[in-house]
Every structure is written in structure tokens, then in C-alpha cells.
């Protein structure tokens, strides 16, 4: 135990560099997946057949490819096509695209849960599609969507570790590098696990808060 604390004090600063990158990857891909997911979901509920079908097939293609393969593709294959991305860019792009499929399905479920009478009431006062979405549907859908959105945040935090496979020196990769050079596997990976857990706990509490609030209405 004493050894652990000693190692922890020594490795903590290096691992914190990893934490910083983990947070950058998580937030970056969270934002990207939210925007893309919203776009897919809007296309899906637009009532325009071509858009809705395009979105449905995109979602299925994205869902059918493992995140790690998507990352390899962006980082190792794209340069052959003339597009070179930094490891960090590829990680954010890959995770963002991969998760946009789940975000889209979550958003769509929330939008479709809104009572049809709400949309008719909006139309009956002359609102068009976009105004109906903005003023009537989305504000109500947010309440429904937030708890699963929180869960996606937790999953993304953990899945950001997959960025290590394309050399992004986030928390998991930093841990692996220290472990392989010091052979202190137990100390290092225990510390890494604790650091992920520490970041997850506030998110878990946030989800609980969302769930309580959604249950109120």
C-alpha cells in the first residue's frame, strides 16, 4: 500500500496530462456527436422521404462499424486519400461520428414522444415546421432526452480511451506507457481506473438529477 501511494505521487502529474487529453477528446466528440445527431434526427423526422431514408441508412452504416475501425480508417486510410488528420482530430472526428448514431436515435425517440396534439396546436396558430420544432417540440423533448444523454456522456468518457489506439496520449495510453517502462502495472492501472472513476462520478450524479427532474412532470 505504501508503495502504491509512493508510485501514485510520482505518476500522478504525468497521468494528469493524459486526463487533460481525455477531457478534450470527450468534450470535442460530445459536441460533434450532439450536432451531427441532431442533424440526423431532424432529417429523420422531417417528413421528407429522401432525407429520412438517407439519415436512416447513415445511422445504420455508422452503427455497424466498430469505433476502433472507424478511428483506424480516419487516421491511417484518409492520408492515402489526401486528407491528413492529426491523431487528436481523427479521434474527435471518429468518436463524434460513431456516437452521432446513438445520439440521433435518442433525439428521435424524444421528438416522437411528443403528443401529436402539440404539433397540431402549433400548426393551428400558423407555425411552420421549424418554428414548431424550436418553440414546441424540442423544449419538451429535451426533458425526455436528457437522462439517456447523460448516459452517453459517461460512455463517451470511457470510450475516449479508444483514441489510444491511434496514438492520442490520453489517460489510458499514458498509463500504458508508464506501466511498460516501469513494470509497475498494479499501481499504474489502479490509479488510471480510479481517475476514470473520479471523472465518471459527477456525470453519474448528473444523470440521477436529470432522471429525477424528468420524472417530476
Amino acid at each position, binding site marked *: 500500500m505504501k508503495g502504491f501511494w509512493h508510485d501514485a505521487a510520482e505518476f500522478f502529474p504525468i497521468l494528469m496530462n493524459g486526463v487533460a487529453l481525455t477531457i478534450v477528446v470527450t468534450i470535442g466528440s460530445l459536441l460533434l456527436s450532439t450536432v451531427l445527431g441532431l442533424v440526423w434526427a431532424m432529417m429523420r423526422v422531417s417528413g421528407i422521404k429522401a432525407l429520412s431514408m438517407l439519415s436512416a441508412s447513415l445511422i445504420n452504416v455508422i452503427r455497424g462499424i466498430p469505433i476502433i475501425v472507424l478511428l483506424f480508417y480516419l487516421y491511417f486510410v484518409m492520408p492515402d486519400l489526401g486528407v491528413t488528420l492529426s491523431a487528436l482530430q481523427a479521434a474527435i472526428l471518429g468518436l463524434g461520428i460513431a456516437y452521432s448514431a446513438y445520439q440521433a436515435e435518442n433525439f428521435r425517440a424524444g421528438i416522437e414522444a411528443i403528443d401529436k*396534439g*402539440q404539433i*397540431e*396546436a402549433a*400548426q*393551428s*396558430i*400558423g*407555425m411552420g415546421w421549424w418554428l414548431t420544432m424550436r418553440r414546441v417540440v424540442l423544449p419538451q423533448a429535451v426533458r425526455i432526452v436528457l437522462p439517456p444523454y447523460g448516459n452517453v456522456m459517461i460512455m463517451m468518457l470511457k470510450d475516449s480511451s479508444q483514441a489510444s489506439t491511434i496514438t492520442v496520449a490520453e489517460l489510458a495510453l499514458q498509463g500504458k506507457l508508464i506501466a511498460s517502462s516501469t513494470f509497475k502495472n498494479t499501481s499504474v492501472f489502479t490509479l488510471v481506473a480510479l481517475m476514470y472513476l473520479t471523472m465518471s462520478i459527477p456525470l453519474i450524479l448528473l444523470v440521477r438529477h436529470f432522471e429525477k427532474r424528468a420524472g417530476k*412532470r
Partner: protein
Amino acid sequence: MIELNDVHKSFGKVEVLKGITASVEKGEVVCIIGPSGSGKSTILRCINGLESYDRGEISVEGLKVDRDAPSIVNIRTQVSMVFQRFNLFPHRTALENVVEGPLFVKKEPRAQVLERGRALLAQVGLAEKADAHPPQLSGGQQQRVAIARALAMQPKAILFDEPTSALDPELVGDVLGVMRKLADDGMTMVVVTHEMGFARDVADRVLFIDGGVIVEQGPAKSVLNQPQHARTQDFLRRVLHPL
């Protein structure tokens, strides 16, 4: 003001409107009565384009109702609707519900709209509920807010789709009272209803619809007191004397 000419409408293979021809004049109160599934609500929903129709023509003040044309927004801002299940926006207060259309669709000045909104809530007897959210209101109060929301658009006509059918019996009177006052003030109203007393006392004309056609129409008192057609007589007997 509202004209329907040989309007047909099918849901899949079921033809619910089989050639409806009718008109509503300015300032007139027309009640549409008839059994469930006769197509009463569908007529209302076609008038403001919530539903499309297959054949014939509907026009409002000479403007053809086509739910896929941009002009539908124009028609909807002139013909408001009150729904059976209120359909208030639950995430907004009573006052916000009332001012939503004028502020965001008609883009009228905020201060003026808010003032009118409060006056309308007072008119339906809910001045003190301006800041309440719909779930905190009774059904009758919600429906009166919905009527204020319809009025806030300063419409030329209001369509009522069974406005009291979802209410507890003791709350029906408040809503009908507000509607009666509107009629007295000269509002053009088309009301789908099962409230025969309201139809007799308030309506200028009654249309009896059954099986997607207008079976009988005429001045409210004559249709309701001396129905000519056997189907009208049968319907009224069953509504007025259910036992």
C-alpha cells in the same frame, strides 16, 4: 366566409367525407352534430389544413385551403382552432400560451401582445392564472386558456372541435359560457359538439352529419325541435333520451 364545395376525403379505403357542400357566413355560429365517426371533426380539420382533402374545394374568404401551399399559414392565422384535448403547451405558462402565436408567428410588438394576452385571460375569467402552467389548471381552465390562445390571433373565425367532451360535467358550463359570450359578440364559429342545449340556444344553424354526408341542415331550432329526416330523429332521440 368559409365555403366547402363537394369535399371528399378518404383515410385509406374508408371514405369519411362523401361530398360535403356547406358555407359559413361572417358572424354566424354553426354547430355540426352527428354520431361518432361521421366525419364531423374531419370537416373542421380540413378547413384549417390540419388534414388534406382529396376532391372538391374549401376556401376561406376566397382563398383556397391547400395545406401544402405557403398560403396555409395565412389561413391558419385567420381561422383559429380549439381542440377537444386542449393541447396547451405544457412547458409554457397560461399567458405564454396565449401570446405565443402573436409574438412568434405574427411578430407583433411584445408589450402590446402581453397586454392583450392578459386582457384575454381576464375575459375568460382566468386573470389570476396568467403565470400558472397548464398541468396546474383544471380541464375547464385549460380549455378557457385555449380559447384565449385562439382569440389572441385575432381570428376571423374559430373552429371548436368537441371543446367540452374531455371535461368533467361540472366544468362544461364555464367553457360553454365563454363560447356563448363570443357568439354574442359576433364571432364566426364552427362548433362540433354533443351539447344539444348549446346548439339550440346559441347556434344560428345546425348541420347534422352521418356517414360522411350532410343529412339535414337548417336553423338550429327547427333541426333540433322538428327534425325532418329519420336518421336525425333517431340520433336526437338517442342523444337526448339515452335511457
